[in-house]
């Protein structure tokens, strides 16, 4: 399949992830939506990598994946920690950054 098709899928997936991040209240689902966005990025990287015949895109996709893993680990740890102190996983109630 031509590259643009992959790119369109990637874009759509990114938008879906963005909508999830913006709308959902549950921190866990927000984190999952972030994972969706990262996956969309990975897809775009791999598509262009193939189009250009350059495997550096793969390397970057690899890094993105590692980053996603790290992010998930820390993010979930924070969720657990917040849940422990506040008994909630709802973003509505976590607004300590309020100015």
């Amino acid at each position: 399949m031509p590259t643009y098709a992959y790119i369109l899928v990637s874009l759509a997936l990114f938008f879906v992830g963005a909508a999830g991040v913006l709308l959902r209240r549950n921190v866990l689902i927000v984190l999952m939506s972030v994972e969706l966005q990262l996956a969309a990025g990975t897809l775009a990287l791999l598509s262009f990598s193939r189009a250009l015949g350059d495997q550096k895109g793969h390397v970057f996709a690899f890094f993105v994946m590692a980053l996603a893993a790290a992010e998930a680990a820390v993010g979930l740890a924070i969720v657990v920690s917040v849940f422990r102190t506040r008994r909630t996983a709802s973003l509505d109630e976590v607004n300590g950054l309020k100015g």
Partner: protein
Amino acid sequence: MNLTAHSASMAETIAFAILSAGVLAGGLLTITRRNPVSAVMSLVLTFAALAGLFATLSAHFLAVLQILVYAGAIMVLFVFVVMMVNREESTPIARQGLCTRAVGVLAAGYVFYRVAWLVGHERGMPLLAASATPPVKDFGTVSSVGALLFSDFLFPFEAISLLLLVAVIGGVMLTRHVREDRPSRVS
């Protein structure tokens, strides 16, 4: 740079259609499920389909990693946390500042529409039209990607390993159990 365009075979097209439909459907399900467990399961679907898409892109190594790391490790992590925190929500969508966020989604949609239009309009340009696996030996295999990782990208590789280490330590520190006899840090 050698960009070769060849018409896609029927099977290829069908595979792509199924996989991308799986990806998008999984994604939509993920963000719409009220129950986090179902959301995680939808996410697994998404990542599995995505791994398939990677495979069609000749990214074999990454496809396998996608399954192993995402569908395997990360999802397990999510499931665990969901188990710990699980609260089914009566209102999945937060009400606070809903208006702002709705406008935000619309804005994101606008950006999506614009970029998608551009991609569709420019689909004829070589970069976007390329559809064949490049004539590079062992493209996307473990050996060739690994060779690149350990030569040109050694330093970033080490850096990312350090990042993972930090994440691990951070995760442990953050979730460490606070003993009851100590004064709580909670205000």
